[in-house]
């Protein structure tokens, strides 16, 4: 951080361009917001207790203590292991999780009362949820600790993909007695507890898909035939999306899980769109979705039932598996109205499965439209910060993964809240962080840990030198180094050497890129650089790793830079920046290498693909 500031003063003193990444770590902000979230959750808890039992019990100490301990641990971990992480992600998660806990506790109170009047035993789900949160926290810490750089995940991409598919398919393979709960075969029931492997498969598959798209992006960019002015993708490039559709259909058929299928397909589509920027993929995907939905509606009774319940919940109110649940949820939301009944003052327990699928109905009943809107806004903020980190991070894999993870949160919220509010047919997915349910909580905490890791990489100052060598210190970090205008050596025809574009690769193919003269000139060009101080080697790895080699554990600035084929090339820009007096623009430079190595911010972003493309050809 200090080093980056030093660079700034040396290189760009007279104008504020490319300011150093002097971003504050903002851990204090995070702590403040976390404390605020804790205050809100505690208030909610107290209100629930007062309104329900007219008195405070000691359980508040237990729950409050657990909550504080969990998020203090998370905060301290972020402070140490991801100090530049986004300050908003963790507080948002804390607030959502806390509100979920309070709501579950509140539903427990109501259920316990009902059980007591019936003379039954009742085991609440709030303590379990606290336990799950603790386990989730442990996973969160483990992920944050073990994945020091999200780019290492690319080397496990295919393993992750395979693991994801296996996890996804496992419940369908197992006998129903081991995997079926409430008609959906998405569980693995073990003695003592049961998990929903699909939640974890979601993340694993996203890792795989992000990595796959980064590697094969060019394929999807290839234009096929033009029909009606729209460039259609080539038929054979449709493979992955068809596979995704088939997998989703498989989930639908074998596991009877509408929500997960919808979620997977949406995420796949979104990541494809983000990777290619071509709207045609969305169009293709959506039409495939419509066709699939139509076929599913024709074939499967449970899909028809969901749709019937959606169109008019009251018509099937009394049928088994009918619209009773949705109708009760809507009644609850209606009872809440704009401002809600007040925490602990409503009757959200009337809705079946209120603490899992219909938790937003319970929340909406007690804090009303205003409160539910705030909760949804918190989700939005969470996803927005994730997206922003994805935008800011420099490597394409991180961008895709971050975008996918953030989108997964909003998509899931949309699917379930849309179902509860009768915007779309009800599908059983969990509400992230709010719902009772271990698998969902665990998976979402892993997701958040990955997002934090990506945002940490995005905001981290570029250069963190392991050893501060004196000559290197004044140089701008390579990603920030300014573009330098250099005189072309005399032999090329265009003598003036005007604005040579930032990267020769970007030039139109018709133009002869200056790089074509590189081979002849190379040896002599390298000479002056070879005498440059050796410490540069530590800074930019000179060996050309091919594409997706695992990244060294130390936070390297931008490993893709190293994929330039010529060794030593990476040193050129800092050296040039050193030679040039600040402000001077036409200084001489001895025989620059043919391929211009002028780094720009822009080229940093695109580098991986280009490097990959070169490998492929």
């Amino acid at each position: 951080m200090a080093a980056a500031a030093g660079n700034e003063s040396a290189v760009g003193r007279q104008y504020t361009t490319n300011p150093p990444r002097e971003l504050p770590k903002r851990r204090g902000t995070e702590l403040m917001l976390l404390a605020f979230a804790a205050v809100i959750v505690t208030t909610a808890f107290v209100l629930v207790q007062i309104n329900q039992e007219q008195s405070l019990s000691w359980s508040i100490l237990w729950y409050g203590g657990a909550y504080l301990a969990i998020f203090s641990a998370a905060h301290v971990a972020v402070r140490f292991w991801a100090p530049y992480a986004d300050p908003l992600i963790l507080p948002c998660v804390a607030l959502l999780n806390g509100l979920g806990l309070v709501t579950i506790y509140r539903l427990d109170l109501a259920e316990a009362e009902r059980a007591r009047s019936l003379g039954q035993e009742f085991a609440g789900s709030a303590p379990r949820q606290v336990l799950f949160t603790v386990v989730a926290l442990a996973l969160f810490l483990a992920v944050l600790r073990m994945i020091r750089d999200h780019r290492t995940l690319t080397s496990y991409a295919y393993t992750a993909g395979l693991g994801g598919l296996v996890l996804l398919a496992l419940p369908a393979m197992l006998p129903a007695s081991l995997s079926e709960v409430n008609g959906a075969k998405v569980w693995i029931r073990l003695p003592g507890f049961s998990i929903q492997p699909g939640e974890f498969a979601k993340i694993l598959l996203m890792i795989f898909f992000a990595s796959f798209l980064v590697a094969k992006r060019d394929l999807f960019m290839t234009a096929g035939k033009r029909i009606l002015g729209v460039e259609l993708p080539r038929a054979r490039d449709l493979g992955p999306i068809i596979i995704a559709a088939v997998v989703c259909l498989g989930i639908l058929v074998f596991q009877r899980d509408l929500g997960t299928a919808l979620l997977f397909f949406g995420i796949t589509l979104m990541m494809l769109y983000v990777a290619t920027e071509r709207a045609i993929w969305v169009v293709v995907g959506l039409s495939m979705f419509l066709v699939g939905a139509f076929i599913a509606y024709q074939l499967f009774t449970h899909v028809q039932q969901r749709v019937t319940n959606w169109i008019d919940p009251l018509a099937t109110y009394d049928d088994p598996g009918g619209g009773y649940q949705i109708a009760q949820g809507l009644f609850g939301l209606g009872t809440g109205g704009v401002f809600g009944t007040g925490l602990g003052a409503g009757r959200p327990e009337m809705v079946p499965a209120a603490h899992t699928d219909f938790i937003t109905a319970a929340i909406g009943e007690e804090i009303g439209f205003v409160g539910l809107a705030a909760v949804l806004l918190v989700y939005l903020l969470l996803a927005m910060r994730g997206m922003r980190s994805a935008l800011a991070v420099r490597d394409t894999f991180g961008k895709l993964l971050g975008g996918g993870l953030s989108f997964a949160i909003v998509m899931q919220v949309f699917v379930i809240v849309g179902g509860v509010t009768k915007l779309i047919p009800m599908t059983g997915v969990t509400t992230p962080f709010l719902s009772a349910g271990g698998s969902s909580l665990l998976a979402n905490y892993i997701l958040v840990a990955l997002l934090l890791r990506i945002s940490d990489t995005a905001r981290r100052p570029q250069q963190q030198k392991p050893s501060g060598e004196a000559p290197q210190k004044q140089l701008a970090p390579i990603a920030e180094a300014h573009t330098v205008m250099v005189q072309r050596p005399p032999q090329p025809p265009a003598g003036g050497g005007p604005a040579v574009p930032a990267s020769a690769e970007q030039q139109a193919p018709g133009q002869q890129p200056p790089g074509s003269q590189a081979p002849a000139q190379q040896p002599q060009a390298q000479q002056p650089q070879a005498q440059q101080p050796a410490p540069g080697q530590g800074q930019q790895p000179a060996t050309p790793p091919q594409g997706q080699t695992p990244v060294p554990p130390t936070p390297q600035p931008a490993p893709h830079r190293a994929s330039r084929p010529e060794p030593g090339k990476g040193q050129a820009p800092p050296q040039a920046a050193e030679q040039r007096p600040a402000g001077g623009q036409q200084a001489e430079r001895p025989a620059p290498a043919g391929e211009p190595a002028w780094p720009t911010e822009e080229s940093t972003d695109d580098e991986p693909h280009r490097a990959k493309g070169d490998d492929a050809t």
Partner: protein
Amino acid sequence: MPELVVQLTRAGFLLLLWLFVFAALRVVRSDLYAASGLRVNIPSLRRGKDKKRPRAGGRGGGKMPRQLVVTQGALSGTRIALDGKPILIGRADDSTLVLDDDYASTRHARISLRGDEWYVEDLGSTNGTYLDRAKVTAPLRVPLGVPIRIGKTVIELRP
């Protein structure tokens, strides 16, 4: 519990929730400009001590640029008086400074006044705009006398 208290706590809790949202949005706002490269004075505890730096960095103190001078290229010597209107540069006929240069794009860059500072921004040109040696990717403040390079043309602001 008395009804009044219930109502008050009900409203109070909603207020608290929304305060959280606004506090979060405030953090978002303070981050908005951080990545675009502009130094924005956002009231916060940290900014206080390095407030002096940007001031010291501004060469030419309080002088306002009055004209734009082409220092290199085919149009070398051209002067355009700055009257507060944005200056469009490119090969398009309606640009303020029409370049006849294969390396320039049709709409290449814009130099515009914001507050009392001039900023250059690249309009998605093919070959890029450079403020001194830095590629312009976001609007950048143009100090006096710092060359802006567009294709073969170099311009700068003069008092």
